[in-house]
């Protein structure tokens, strides 16, 4: 597990592939852990289920969270992250298809740090991924651990 990594929570394999592709264009795809639904994301973060043996002190630099997820949706994942002391300060960027107002409001209310809509145009998507990586992995000073 690399020192600095991204947790990508994404159920759509196309989107997963495109996101990884976009990230890899800027050499940040190596440090990406993918959770394919909400439960998996929670297990990974809190060392439960399939990730029961994981060292939970190893936290990602940033969580890229889709909202429409099977089992446990993105809002619920966000709420649990914020509810737990260990992950309370973990930066979470909502990365989703819609920019419905109620989704944006609900996300911020539940404690996301940023809200980015996935553009249809892949060129724009690549640019967005570049900016996200640049910002959250290099520019931003994360919470101290």
């Amino acid at each position, binding site marked *: 597990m690399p020192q600095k990594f991204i947790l990508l929570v994404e159920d759509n394999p*196309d*989107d997963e592939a*495109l996101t990884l*592709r976009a990230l890899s264009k800027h050499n940040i795809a190596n440090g990406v852990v993918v959770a394919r639904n909400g439960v998996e994301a929670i297990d990974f973060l809190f060392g439960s289920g399939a990730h029961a043996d994981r060292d939970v002190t190893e936290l990602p630099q940033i969580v890229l969270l889709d909202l429409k997820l099977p089992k446990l949706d993105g809002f619920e994942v966000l709420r649990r992250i914020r509810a737990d002391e260990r992950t309370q300060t973990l930066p979470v960027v909502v990365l989703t*298809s*819609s920019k*419905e107002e109620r989704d944006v409001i609900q996300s911020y209310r539940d404690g996301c740090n940023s809200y980015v809509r*996935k553009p*249809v145009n*892949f060129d724009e998507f690549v640019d967005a991924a570049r900016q996200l990586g640049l910002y959250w992995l290099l520019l931003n000073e994360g919470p101290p651990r």
Partner: protein
Amino acid sequence: MSGRTIKRAALIFLPLAVAAVAVSYLLYASQANAIRATAQAAEARTAEIARQRVALTVASLMTDASYLSEQDALRTYLTSDEPASLGHLQAEYVALARHRQFIAQLRFIDMNGREVVRVDRQGDTVALVPPEQLQNRADEPYTKETLKLDRGQTYVSELELNAEQGVIEQPVKPTLRVGVPVFDGTGAKRGIIIINYLGQRILDRVGELRDAVADLWVVNAQGYWLLGPKDDVFAFMYPDRKDRTFAAAYPDVWRQMQTAPAGKVESDPGRFTFARADVDPSDAGGRPFPPSLFVLVATPRAFSDAQTNALKFNFAVAAFGLLALLGGISLGLARHQIHRHEAEQLVRLSEARFRAVTETASDAVISADHRGIVRYFNPGAERIFGYAEQDMVGRSLTELMPERFRGAHTQGLQRYLGSREPTVIGQTVELIGLRKDGREFPIELALAGSDVDGELFFTAIVRDISVRAEAERNLRASEARFRDLLESAPDAVLITDEEGRIQLVNAETQRLFGYHRHELMGREIEMLMPERYRGAHIGHRHGYVAAALTRPMGAGLDLHGLRKDGSEFPVSISLSPTKTPIGLMVFCDIRDITDQRANETKIQDLNRRLQLDNAELEAVNKELEAFSYSVSHDLRAPLRTIDGFSQALAEDAGPLLKPEHHSHLNRVRQAAQRMGLLIDDLIKLARVTRTDVTIGDVDLSEIALAVATNLQDAAPQRQAEFMIAPGLRAEGDPRLMQVALDNLLSNSWKFTAPRSPARIEFGTTVADGKPAFFVRDNGVGFDMNYAGKMFGAFQRFHDAREFAGTGIGLATVQRIIHKHGGRIWAKSQPGEGATFYFTL
């Protein structure tokens, strides 16, 4: 007694008191003068009598002496010189001395000074002095003086004390000597005759005139007194008493006595009235005379003071009495004056009050005397009748009434004066007044008669009731209007009294219930309701009268009316009470609600249907919302896949693909991207449709400016002029107006792309008489033939290759404007730019 009374009394009293004192003093002074004058006259008289006594005594002595000088016996003696003739002379002298008791000594002295014959008196005894005792008197002053005299002259000595051989004879014997020369037949002077006179007699005779008060003095030329104060003694001729003279005691008096034969002198000790008892100089034979004697009547000041003091006291008592009387009178007068003053003030106050009331009264106040002549005419009267006070005072009341009433007025006045039977006095009557300008107007007149000191006065209070009459007319008109209104009212209106008896009904009542008016009047209201309600209604009615309120009747109950034909119909009834002088009247408004009932049922049905529709609509809306939510999430993901993997393909297999393959992939991507935009716009449109309008104050200029700035920032290379009118505000939903303006301005921005500079304007104008906003550009414009389709969704006028777009923007704008109740339209020509107008 008030200080005011005392002050006023003092003012009256002081001058009176001064006058009284002055008069008293003058009376006193004149009285005192009279007393003094009387006393002085008496004193003068006494002095005169005393003087006469002295003078007469001396004169008679002188006569005696003259007689003796001519006596036969003496002549015989002088010629014969015989002893017998001497004896004869002696006998004569003795006889004379015996008869004349005041003669103290009688002598004949020859030229040598020798006494020839001498008769002396000792008391009552008269004796001839024997020859051996005769003396030579040549050295005596009286001898010397008399011998010097010529015929007809007489010597009179001073009143002296008799002295023998220089010794004053005791008891003192005041003596007056009279001497005359004696001539013989040949005319030769042969000697002198000397008569000694008992001076005490003169003094006694003068002394007789003394009274209880006045002292009598006899003072000689040297100022010695011979007769003086009763207790005093002679000082005259006593060397040791040389200074005890009258002259020394009263030098002032003495000095004045030298200047006049008689007079009075006031001096400290008292008043002296004096007279000089001179012997007539002719009697004294032309000799220088005096010796003089002064007689003086002296009245001590104490006495004259006592006299005036008594008077003074009397007058003082009288004056004090008078002053007390005057004080009393002054006080009385002062009181009277103050009372009168107060009474006058009361009258003035009353007058002022009367004036104040009448001068400010809006009514006319007119006073007239018994002849009907105006005496007082107040400002109210001036205003009402148009005459000035000075014009009317002194003129007849009849001028204030129309000609036709004057006769009756005069007769009425006469009748009242004759019988004192009031007709209009004390009552209020309505009459017609006449203004100065000849206009007549209705008045209300109140007349009062008053008797002022037997003279009859009338006071009339006149009110101009034109306004009231007008008001009454208006009231009648208003009542008529009320009746008209009542009659034409669409409801049945009736009024009942407290007992529920019908007092008034309108036409609609007759129509609604089928009764004629006369069938209803006075009947109980219950006749208009079905039998089953009547009993309860009577109870309700009594309760209502006790606590009358305006309210609908039988709230929540089905009320029914009963027609004359027995049919019933639903009604609504409103009651309102009115308190009137004849008791509580209740105003009932009865409406036939048969139609209303039917309508209500219909409305209820409609409402029910509407509720169902609403629920349905809501469900649809919810579905739509879920749909658009799902669309925004799920429809875009595949597009991203298409676009993303097309690009991935182009990148990964780039070298293997021919250029046309790249073009194909590009078309795939563009289609996917356009569909992404379409979905976005559709979602926006759906959102606008869903959103409720929240009206607020919107600054359209500010929104437009922000949009313009965004557009220019996004394409800084474009040359554009935005002309945005400042301060345009409207009532609208701020968020929706933001969307609308964003769409309109973005549209203009898009279609002015070929222009340099592009000109885009936002402002207001007037369209069809109403204010309208507009967005105008100098862009490519459009053909007005297609203007009708312009606002439909997915309608596009331009080639997608020329101008990108989904065709949803204007549909969204129109949706927003319609949601605001406004209108949107456009004007354009191809190539000439376009203008979009909208109202809100």
